[in-house]
């Protein structure tokens, strides 16, 4: 990960230049996608704060207030366990993902955190298969500064897709 440190955050994220904050967030989402798409999965937990949660949840459940997720990570340990499964234990056919993240919306700026949303589309490429749209949805995230960098404190990936094309091995 080659992200720059967040400048002068001692005074609070709400005092930061709005354009600068947006550039930093844009970089965060771009590096996050790069990590998932380009074989850097072991760095995935580094995008999260020490105390964090990650939920990939069907929109069907989210909209009805049903708590069941497709992937539920309640701590950084869960994220590391998911990485270990992808790397060592799960059986799956070779695949490549490509996250297209766009439409970043900053929805709340406070001294200690920022809330942001963005759309995602994920393309999946597999042997003997034409590249397909694998998943579509949006992120609803809470971001904080930790170790001088923006990190996800809560990341909610809500997938519109109801039917998942067989398996979802890599996180979104």
């Amino acid at each position: 990960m080659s992200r720059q440190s967040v400048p002068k955050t001692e005074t609070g994220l709400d005092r930061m230049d709005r354009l600068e904050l947006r550039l930093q967030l844009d970089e965060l989402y771009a590096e996050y996608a790069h990590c998932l798409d380009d074989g850097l999965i072991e760095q995935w937990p580094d995008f999260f704060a020490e105390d964090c949660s990650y939920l990939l949840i069907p929109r069907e459940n989210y909209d009805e207030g049903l708590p069941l997720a497709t992937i539920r990570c309640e701590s950084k340990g869960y994220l590391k366990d998911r990485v270990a499964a992808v790397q060592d234990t799960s059986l799956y056919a070779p695949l490549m993902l490509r996250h297209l993240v766009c439409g970043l919306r900053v929805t709340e700026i406070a001294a200690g955190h920022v809330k942001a949303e963005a759309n995602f589309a994920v393309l999946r490429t597999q042997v003997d298969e034409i590249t397909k749209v694998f998943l579509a949805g949006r992120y609803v995230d809470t971001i904080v500064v930790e170790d001088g960098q923006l990190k996800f404190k809560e990341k909610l990936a809500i997938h519109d897709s109801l039917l998942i094309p067989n398996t979802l091995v890599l996180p979104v």
Partner: protein
Amino acid sequence: MAEADTGQHAERRWPEAGVHRIPYWIYTDAEIYAREQARIFKGPSWNYVGLTAEVPEPGSFRRSFIGDIPVVLTRDSDGGLNVFINKCAHRGVQFCQKQRGATNEFICPYHQWTYDLTGKLIGVPFRRGLKRQGGMPASFELDDHHLQRLQVTERNGVVFASFADDLPPLEDYLGESMLGYFDRLFDGRALKVLGYQRQRIPSNWKLMFENIKDPYHASLLHVFLITFGLFRADNPSAVRLDETGRHSALISRKGEQKATSDTAEMGRFKADMKLNDAKLLTPVKEFPGDTTVVMQTIWPNIIFQQQTNTLATRHIVPRGPGAFDLHWTYFGYEDDDEEMTRIRLRQANLMGPAGYVSIDDSEVMEFSQDGISAFPDNEGILEMGGYDTDDVDHIVTESAIRGFYKYYREVMAL
């Protein structure tokens, strides 16, 4: 993916050997698929359609499927449960497009034919014409054009429906042994739906049943089950079938993460693997006895899952010979406290399209279909544990799959 067979095989014959040989054309042949829809799903079987917790109030409804046929489950104004085909009597429109909801009536969007919650036709616009012109013939009777309504039965919150009028009660259909496992999970307490997962698996629907009737693979394929002792050949285990062979249950109990003389043949056992956050697998004892896993497969379309504290129904919806949808409904009980609900939600990480265990199964089913498709006249081997279809107190057997095909052959006349 290979295309389905063209179906020009009127003389399909099961291998002489019997149910320990499985001809691959049953997974690929379009004519066999059509016969399955007619004889199995539209035949004398109780098909799972949903949970009463999903239709709690008069007016509640839920879309569902029997085989690949779309149906609607409703609760009518008298509190009764109804299942009817999601197809307008007029021109065949699939009128109910919403997954779940509440309504007083169903109105087909095309010409607004209107049905009540039991599926009765109650209104046809311009039935008497307009300005004395047009309209339905005098002989047209609403009573002749209700939605196709199915037989419905319910036990402890689980709803089944059938196209057949003369089926035995669900209790007899399940048989004593399977009813016992059913009642263990559905013990009469009100259920609470925790949410849904859905996936399209590019393999024949029967491979899903085979997978859940096959304890042999569980000790070999699934690192998570083997390593953490959740389901392993050296744990006390059993396979139970009903008298016909069509239903079965795999039963086991959680053991320890330790290497034994038996794990030597489990190539994917990882003695030193540790979870960074052990909360994921922290079990709570909630059912009587030592059993922690019951995977029950009920003919012809439902799997009931208890793996430690994660509970779900897995509803199989065939989509042609080469694909099926799997609809997972996770549930707990109304009297679960918050902590119990959290435990169920955590352990759900094992299951579903992203599950630590289920990913392996879903992928392997796709690999199977990919391997089989080009060879309809080849046969699979089902000889683990011998040739019979008996109950056994171990899991080094394929007897439940043989039982399934014994009954399948009868129903399909193959």
